[in-house]
């Protein structure tokens, strides 16, 4: 291996990138734009669920019950509907996602000490939204029941209301959110998006690199030169790794200074881990580039290999531990998941090398395998 030749190749590649001004700009603009759009737009909280109420009772108590939903920030009241027959078309046109139907004699029955059944309809098309809505509905109902019970106790057992409350609610739950006390989704999104952007953009930058030379025929210059394949690939990729490393710094700065995500961990460790991750994802682009013959194919395969794992198998939406064994197995095959732990750990949890070294090692092994396979597949003596 000759350092000079590697540098020469890297220099040539760098010149080529710099002369394609538009591409150079895109190489830096794309990651930044992605982080900005997602940071502002990807709100994962389920809030403002549009809903309406069918109140057949129209008494103070039924209104009090409905008002718990109307006043909540989780729901967005769209108005009252006279009859439940009108609900179906509202659901079909996605005007509402949830409806509450209060039966007649709601107040009379409750006052008489009978139990009452309230119907609630939820649009199940988006399951995550549906389960969360269901959770909110049941939680509000439990709270309402607690108050009803307190009332009932104080009237029928004959004790003052504050004592009845104690009696009615024996177990008090103290809830604490660790790492993100106010549960701000922007904080998590900003941290996780570094993972996402660095999973998707470096492979795209790189994937075209070698195929382009193959497609245009300029690769023959390399085939007939004294440059070895290791030197060629290393030199070829150095500029892309550098660009992506600079991008990782830009993304970090945007997350911290623009989105205000707290960075509690060790910056040097995080930087080092990001470089390993970038080398790893660049390796995906390299592998694709070596494998295929045309740039169109390289584009499509890169999409397949990066976008889906980065969304579904990274822990962005769902933690790996709650997947089925099959899903867990798939997740371990992609590097995204390890870096999600590193990013969330370094940003929100404030942990460092002691807790996360295993993930960095996993990424390094992953990178080594990718690069090794690419070196083996790349040949200076093309068939046919």
């Amino acid at each position: 291996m000759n350092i000079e030749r590697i540098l020469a190749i890297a220099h040539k590649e760098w010149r080529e990138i710099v002369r394609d001004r538009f591409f150079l700009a895109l190489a830096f603009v794309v990651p930044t734009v992605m982080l900005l759009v997602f940071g502002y737009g990807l709100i994962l909280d389920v809030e403002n669920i549009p809903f309406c109420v069918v109140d057949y009772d129209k008494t103070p108590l039924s209104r009090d019950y409905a008002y718990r939903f109307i006043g909540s920030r989780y729901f967005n009241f769209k108005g009252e509907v006279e009859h439940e027959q009108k609900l179906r078309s509202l659901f079909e046109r996605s005007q509402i996602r949830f409806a509450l139907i209060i039966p007649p004699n709601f107040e009379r029955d409750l006052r008489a000490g009978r139990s009452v059944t309230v119907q609630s309809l939820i649009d199940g098309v988006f399951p995550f939204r549906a389960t969360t809505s269901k959770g909110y509905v049941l939680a509000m109902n439990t709270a309402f029941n607690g108050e009803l019970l307190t009332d009932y106790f104080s009237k029928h057992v004959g004790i003052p209301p504050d004592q009845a409350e104690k009696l009615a609610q024996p177990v008090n739950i103290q809830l604490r959110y660790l790492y993100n006390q106010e549960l701000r989704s922007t904080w998590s999104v900003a941290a996780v998006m570094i993972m996402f952007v660095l999973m998707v953009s470096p492979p795209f930058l790189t994937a075209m690199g070698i195929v382009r030379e193959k497609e245009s025929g300029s690769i023959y210059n390399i085939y007939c030169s004294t440059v070895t394949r290791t030197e060629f690939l290393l030199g070829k990729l150095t500029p892309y790794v550098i660009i992506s490393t600079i991008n990782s710094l830009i993304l970090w700065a945007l997350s911290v200074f623009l989105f205000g995500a707290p960075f509690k961990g060790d910056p040097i460790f995080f930087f080092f881990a990001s470089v390993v991750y970038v080398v790893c994802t660049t390796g995906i682009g390299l592998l694709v580039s070596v494998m295929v013959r045309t740039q169109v194919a390289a584009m499509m395969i890169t999409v397949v290999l990066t976008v889906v794992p980065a969304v579904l198998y990274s822990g962005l939406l769902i933690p790996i531990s709650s997947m089925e064994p099959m899903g867990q197995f798939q997740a371990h095959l992609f590097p995204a998941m390890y870096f999600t732990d590193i990013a969330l750990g370094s940003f929100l949890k404030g942990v460092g090398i002691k807790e996360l070294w295993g993930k960095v090692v996993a990424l390094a092994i992953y990178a080594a395998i990718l690069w090794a396979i690419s070196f083996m597949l790349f040949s200076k003596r093309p068939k046919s």
Partner: protein
Amino acid sequence: MLGEEFKLWWIRLWSLTLKELLQLSRDGFLIIAIVYMFTLDIWLSGNVHLELHRATLIVRDADHSEVSRELIANFRYPYFKLGGEVFDEREGIWMLDRNEAIVLLDIPENFMRDLRSGRTVDVQVMVDGSNTVIGTLASNYAGRIIGEYGLDRALERIKFHPDKLETVPRVDVRVRVWYNPNQEDFWFLPISELLTVITILGLMLPAAAAVREKERGTIEQLLVSPLTPAQIMIPKVVSMTLVVIVGTAFSLFGVIKGVFGIPVKGNLGFFFLTVALYTVAVSGMGLFISTFTRNLAQVAMLVLVVAMPVVLLSGAWTPPEAMPVWLRRAIHLSPLYYFIEMSYGILLRGAGFGALWDSFLGLSLLGSISFVFGAYRFRRQFR
């Protein structure tokens, strides 16, 4: 005479469409990628749960009584799974730090004694908030489990017999979930993934087909041929739309209905019409992108910056209701937003044209604007 010309026009269109399809079919890796996207990729996305499922719970039980064990037993599959017991809080937080657990339940000493003697007992629940979605769900469920447990204990305290439950005022909520009664998320994700695949292919294939000619220089040949710009452009769109429609049919019947057994309720003709309309709309965007770029590397980066936000923010992954107001307005400019409305409407809710006409109108309008604009820019390159 006019008839001859008309016939020639169609023959040229047809042969160029054929040429595009041939070119595509000779790229083995590309075919593999497209087939993968319409089959395995959709299948993979069906293995992911989008709700609280087996969230790991660890317990610090300082009481070790039958009552505390009863409470712990209420945290069960499918929402939670017990990840073991720790002996102090520090050890528990260490496990949360290392992402080995999501919830830490802390039961104080004398839990049983205090509960039986009529005092109020505090139970501490610590939830990992670094993933806000899971954090919300986990705390929701934990709150409900502990709340219901408390209510049962309260009734026990006044020596209340469960058979007499009818005489306590109480609101029962009967939750009915429409369109997906068991909330099986494997209904949602594969469809969402299919829509994403259609978007990415519809954007990339025509853009790539157009730029490739520029990069290779074959555009010169087309320019000196007796073809009009429209005759060059339309075949690229038509052939790629055909590929997308065939792929969609494949994954709809093969994977979505076949493997997952998701019931498709609506009119399939209407659905495929929508797919075609949407693909043409997106192709317009693809052609538009192609006019800005000189090589495929640029196309790849531009598609990335256009496609990712459109896909992630149009409601395929996150609810539009929760977005900031400006973004909720902005997504009305995304054809995918209407496409998602219509696809879920047709496939899961069985909605017809009557319920979806406004989305259909929006999609047609946006589609024609983007296509006409893309075509205009594409034509202008030839001057």
